């Protein structure tokens, strides 16, 4: 039991740190390059305003007359006239005049509620529990945590080729244990080569966050959306063999075709990405010499598709079609209603030694499907998402020599969030998250929460407030009224002394 509890606590601690340090980015490199403030593109960094969305759509450039805004001229990697003699020369491009590097650091403080006292109990202490049993560290009631120190680079190389690379140099105060976030090249508006309408086709290649309706990697919230972190783990207690670690927030590797605009009208994306399963990198196959290629567990490719349409609701036609609406006191985001849907289809892979000492491979198709909306009026934004997850199950047959169809593992849930920018430097947030997963409940302590959820439906409320001390420095506060959990169950399977680990978190973040 001690080992199990130790694993709980370790997992809980790691999860706490991960949850509290959601990625978020603003790009100081662009501030330097264009001599402009973060608020040109961000409402409350890293949340983009309409202009920021257009800037991103255009390949990290001003949508029109980009050159006239650049304060630090780019370095020419070839005279423009070299274009005329292509293919007898390398097609000329540019690099940003300054290294387009931005740095980000954040740190956190958390306070867990009085219910954390539950953690100090060792359930169940019985007369048989040996005296002197060592206890694992607990989640502290209060805690200072160093977050991420990250480097990120973004810009464009001219010729409508944009790039982005971000990497966490250190996490939680430890060295070099971070990882690549996004790293991609984006070929903007390649549809022009096929005489398609402007911005109808753009190609992205590399590692990237899926085109989620509401970004997780660049969210303003401290804690992530629960539905984005939900992996689908079946319950062996009902015979399910599903063990799909994929969650929507995972970075994907592959290609993405997209088109349209995020700031009005249609937008679509279609990504073909590596399957993202619980399997690790495969060993080099014996029939292929080592340098012949890359080895991974990604024989199969998954597909993600998204379509959305944004109805700009401005009365004035010019405003409606412009990047930003012409407000009486200055440009502002449109009043709009955006509706969208998304679909992810993949296949998770598990390999087992069969009952006959041969290899058994379970390939379990799964999909995630959902819809989303976003309504914006002035500085008030209400948005939400619903998602349904379904994994087919390949259950073992009686002698583990093969599989038989099992009951699918399912979950659903989503979130609803209201952001209100009360003042240009004051963002208020109210969020509701809900995840319903029978598997999580049946799995009890193996769920992805701190401890066992007491029901298959988990929901939480998360009010928050954020202050921009400067355009690049932010203080954030969030209170997570978390779902009910339990340390253990009685013999009849009922949660004993269920509690909530409500948590107040504060974060300081700066980019430079």
């Amino acid at each position, binding site marked *: 039991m001690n080992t199990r509890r130790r694993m709980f606590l370790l997992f809980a601690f790691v999860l706490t740190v991960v949850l509290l340090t959601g990625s978020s980015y603003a790009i100081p490199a662009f501030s330097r390059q264009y001599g402009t403030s973060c608020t040109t593109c961000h409402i409350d960094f890293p949340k983009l305003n309409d202009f920021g969305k257009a800037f991103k759509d255009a390949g990290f450039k001003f949508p029109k007359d980009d050159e006239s805004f650049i304060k630090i001229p780019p370095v020419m990697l070839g005279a423009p006239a070299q274009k005329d003699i292509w293919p007898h020369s390398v097609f000329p491009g540019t690099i940003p005049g300054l290294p387009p590097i931005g740095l980000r650091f954040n740190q956190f403080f958390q306070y867990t509620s009085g219910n954390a006292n539950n953690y100090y109990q060792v359930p169940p202490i019985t007369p048989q529990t040996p005296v002197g049993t060592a206890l694992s560290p607990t989640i502290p009631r209060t805690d200072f945590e160093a977050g991420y120190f990250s480097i990120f680079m973004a810009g464009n190389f001219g010729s409508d080729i944009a790039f982005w690379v971000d990497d966490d140099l250190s996490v939680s105060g430890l060295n070099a244990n971070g990882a690549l976030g996004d790293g991609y090249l984006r070929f903007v508006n390649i549809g022009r080569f096929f005489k398609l309408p402007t911005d109808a086709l753009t190609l992205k290649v590399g590692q990237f966050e899926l085109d989620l309706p509401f970004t997780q990697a660049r969210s303003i919230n401290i804690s992530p959306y629960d539905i984005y972190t939900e992996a689908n783990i079946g319950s062996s207690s009902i015979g399910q063999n599903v063990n799909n670690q994929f969650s929507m927030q995972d970075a994907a590797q592959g290609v993405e075709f997209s088109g349209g605009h995020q700031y009005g009208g249609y937008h679509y994306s279609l990504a073909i990405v590596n399957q993202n399963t619980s399997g690790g990198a495969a060993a080099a196959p014996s029939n292929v010499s080592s340098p012949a290629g890359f080895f991974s567990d990604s024989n199969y490719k998954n597909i993600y598709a998204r379509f959305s349409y944004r109805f700009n609701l401005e009365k004035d036609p010019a405003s409606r079609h412009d990047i930003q609406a012409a407000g009486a006191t200055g*440009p*502002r985001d449109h009043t709009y209603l955006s509706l969208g849907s998304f679909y992810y289809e993949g296949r998770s892979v598990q390999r087992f030694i069969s009952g006959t000492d041969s290899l058994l491979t379970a390939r379990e198709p799964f999909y995630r499907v959902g819809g989303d909306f976003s309504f914006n009026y002035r500085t008030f934004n209400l948005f939400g998402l619903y998602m349904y997850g379904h994994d087919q199950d390949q259950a073992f047959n009686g002698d583990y020599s093969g599989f038989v169809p099992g009951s699918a593992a399912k979950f659903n849930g989503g979130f609803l969030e209201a952001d209100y920018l009360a003042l240009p430097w004051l963002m208020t947030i109210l969020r509701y998250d809900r995840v319903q997963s029978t598997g999580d409940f049946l799995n009890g302590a193996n769920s992805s929460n701190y401890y066992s959820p007491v029901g298959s439906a988990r929901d939480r409320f998360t009010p928050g407030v954020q202050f921009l001390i400067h355009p690049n420095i932010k203080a954030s506060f969030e209170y997570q009224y978390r779902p009910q959990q339990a340390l253990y169950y009685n013999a009849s399977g009922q949660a004993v002394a269920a509690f909530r680990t409500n948590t107040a978190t504060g974060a300081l973040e700066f980019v430079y």
Partner: protein
Amino acid sequence: MKSTLMMMVVAVVAMMSLAASAGTISGKVSGVTGESVVYVEAPAGKTFPAPTQEPVIDQKGLMFQPHIVVVQQGTTVQFLNSDSVAHNVFWPSVGGNKKLTHNLGTWPKGEKRAFKFDNPGAVPLLCNVHPEMSGYVVVSPTPYFAKTDASGAYKIENVPDGSYTVTAWHEGAKNQSKPVAVAGDSKADLTLSK
């Protein structure tokens, strides 16, 4: 013929006499770097007709150009947007008076909006979507004003002889005023501090 000649002589003498009574104020503004503005305060009870010229302040490359414009009280200034992004111009005060705050709204590339500055003082120009944008209209109560050069030197010409108060303004310093008696060429050095 003789009388016409006589009148011309009288007119020339009168003009020469007028020119002789208009002096120059020159000097140096120290304690700050960059452009400053020096203007003559209006003598009590004295008013000046508003000029008909309408200077233009452009919004170009996410900057107000020129950064500082000095105008006489009553001047209409045209605000042009040459950028392909939407801009906004507003000011939180005129001469420190926050009641005179005004917002000109939003307008597209190539268009202008006009505003007549009837109150003297410095007007800090801002854009609510590009907070780094900074510009100033300095509204002088008289037609006698000048911007300093890079060294801080200035020269205000054609100031009628008399006793005045000159005021120096700089965007990063407190105004400083001092009396000056103009009779021909006069000097007034001013030192500004934050």
